[in-house]
């Protein structure tokens, strides 16, 4: 075990840091709240800069135009980007981390040539059409129908939680092509151009006031058969391939952002007068904040362990589920202290009384944390995964599952069997 970096990793970090310093100085101001066209331009502009400097598709294989970085280098990339204050992946999330790698792995040569270069350049934005109002945790029960009509599918249904749908060029869509097959076996993964007629996008406002997510209504949308990635009715497997790309790095930016939030809360506590001293002198503030700091530190160690595992074994196993379960609890605790510390400054978003020297929005962040136990697999689903795949506990008999899923060995752990 070592934390020290190899000479190659040190060189990668140094070169990246120099580039970030030079590049961020020339970056335009971030887009205004809720201006999605401006946000698209900002995020894709950043993607273009990454591309021109050779950092686009950091984890993608070189043969598809990526950098082919090791999991460690990807961790360094995310760490340095966060520390430098670089833009987040934002609108490029689905394209660079979901659809792109899936097309690279499962697409035809023509599909790769057509879709991958524009993703890397930041020319195209993608969204995800997986979840439906009646297919959340039970995603495989999705109902959106795709009926073959000559060389097209005619697709009808409703999707939800579609990020950046209002500014997307393409959608990675899961639709049911065989309603008579078992639920995991009748689904197809296809590319839907968002300028197709008969798509209606209705943005939803979330708890924090933003409308990043949309509902999407498809009313006999025609999608060419050539847009299927993988085989017809093999879409569940193709969708699962995407999750196999997770190398333990999915939450690095999140976690480092939380460390920044914590440092800011400590700073606020030290500057907030209370009694004869400051809020930091009050153990009921100082101690819980310190425990949150310890947990974030531990979750950073877990992240490095997940990345190490991925470097050795190809993926992080259930490490992502373990991380999510730990991390959302930490963020909930941080939010509880943050609100107590803010007092009446909680009455509005965006730090109305200027407590935060870094202009961080602790109210928004506290509310945002509620999504961490819901999005990308609820905490309850994650606990099932940890209980069944890591501990080997018996499945809930009321839940059906794909027949081909392997039963784990009892007692298997992240390291594979201790």
């Amino acid at each position: 075990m070592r934390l020290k970096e190899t000479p190659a990793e040190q060189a990668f970090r140094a070169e990246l840091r120099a580039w970030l310093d030079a590049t961020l100085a020339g970056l335009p101001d971030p887009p205004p709240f809720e201006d999605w066209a401006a946000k698209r331009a900002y995020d894709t502009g950043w993607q273009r800069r990454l591309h021109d400097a050779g950092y686009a598709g950091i984890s993608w294989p070189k043969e598809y135009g990526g950098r082919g970085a090791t999991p460690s280098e990807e961790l360094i990339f995310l760490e340095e980007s966060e520390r430098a204050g670089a833009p987040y992946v934002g609108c490029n999330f689905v394209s660079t981390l979901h659809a792109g790698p899936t097309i690279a792995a499962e697409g035809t040569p023509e599909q790769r040539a057509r879709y991958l270069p524009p993703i890397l350049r930041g020319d195209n934005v993608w969204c995800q059409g997986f979840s439906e109002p009646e297919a959340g945790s039970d995603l495989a029960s999705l109902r959106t129908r795709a009926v073959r009509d000559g060389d097209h599918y005619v697709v009808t249904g409703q999707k939800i939680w579609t990020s950046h749908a209002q500014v997307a060029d393409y959608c990675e869509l899961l639709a049911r092509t065989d309603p008579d097959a078992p639920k995991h076996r009748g689904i197809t993964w296809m590319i839907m151009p968002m300028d197709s007629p008969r798509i209606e996008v209705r943005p939803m406002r979330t708890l924090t006031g933003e409308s990043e997510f949309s509902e999407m209504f498809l009313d006999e949308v025609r999608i060419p058969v050539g847009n299927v990635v993988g085989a017809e009715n093999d879409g569940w497997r193709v969708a699962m391939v995407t999750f196999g790309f997770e190398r333990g790095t999915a939450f690095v930016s999140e976690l480092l952002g939380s460390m920044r939030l914590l440092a800011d809360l400590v700073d606020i506590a030290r500057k907030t007068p209370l009694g004869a001293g400051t809020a930091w002198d009050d153990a009921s503030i100082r101690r819980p904040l310190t425990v949150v700091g310890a947990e974030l530190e531990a979750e950073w160690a877990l992240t490095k362990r997940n990345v190490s595992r991925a470097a050795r074994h190809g993926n992080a196993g259930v490490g992502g589920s373990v991380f999510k379960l730990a991390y959302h609890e930490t963020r909930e605790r941080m939010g509880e202290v943050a609100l107590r510390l803010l007092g009446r400054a909680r009455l509005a978003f965006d730090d109305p009384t200027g407590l935060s020297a870094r202009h961080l929005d602790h109210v928004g962040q506290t509310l945002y944390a509620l999504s961490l136990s819901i999005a990308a697999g609820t905490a309850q689903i994650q606990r099932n995964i940890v209980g069944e795949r890591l501990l080997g506990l018996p499945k809930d008999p009321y839940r059906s599952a794909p027949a081909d899923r392997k039963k784990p060995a009892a007692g298997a752990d992240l390291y594979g069997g201790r």
Partner: protein
Amino acid sequence: MDLEPTDEQLALAAGLARLCADRVTPEARRAAMALPGAVDRDLWRALGDIGAFALIVPADRDGLGLGLAEATLVFEELGRAAVPGPVVGTFLAAGLPLGSVAGAAMAGEAVVGLVPEGRPALVEHRAALDALLVVGPSGVVLAPRPEGGDGPLDRPLDPLTPVDVVPELPPGEPVGGLDLAARLRRDAGLLSAAIQVGLAGAAVAMATEHAGSRTQFGRAIGSFQALKHLLADAQVAVEVARSAVQAAAVAVDEGGKDADRAAHAARIVASGAADRATRTCIQVHGGMGFTWDLDAHLFLKRTLVLDAGIASPDDAIDALAALL
């Protein structure tokens, strides 16, 4: 960066696991309750023979010249078996310039306790001790075994950790000052954290086994999400704590600038994980978990004992707060 243990490290941990599986059975733990100070001297020598106390002793003093990374892996195994005795004190004594006591500790010939300064002092495993490291605010002292008290208390919290009330600790030889006291607190904290990761892992494994075999309402109780989720949360805590302990140990070994911070964080998180996991183990076992018939209570009690050592989680919280 690579936090996967090497094959050598895994082999070392596996060796300790085998020794513990052979020697520290539930029956052996019960038998140890009747021994003076609850320390099995044969087991102690076996631990010495396999090198458990020699890990961080430099090679030129006949040690293994390894680091805390290896030590935390080994101590996790000692925790998993709930090995009775002052393993942390003996391990740390072996690495200090204590002359013959260090050599005897390294070989498993000496049992060395580790307590905070106090009057009266509560001393664990007193009857078994050959020496006692006393850590005070201003430094570290090596004292002989305290004598002349009323003997072990009738009802120690942990039946495998006998406790004597010592009105006045015997005077001893100064071993080091403030710096050494701080280093021993940090290292003892990290080793205690490693033991707690092992205890927590053992508690979850024991409860998982039970949940998979015990049936109620016609099905294994582990298929009920109410229990599955309790166990999943406990295992998550174990995985996070194990990561924190290993990363902190590596940081200390490498002399990294954030090593203290990482060590204090690991101490805090491991204590929480052990608390959660050992309580969960009792809950999953239902009424039987609340009895002495099962060993679930031993896991909980040991972790409570560890939290009262020279490096408590509260100390770690204060130490970490000063670094934030």
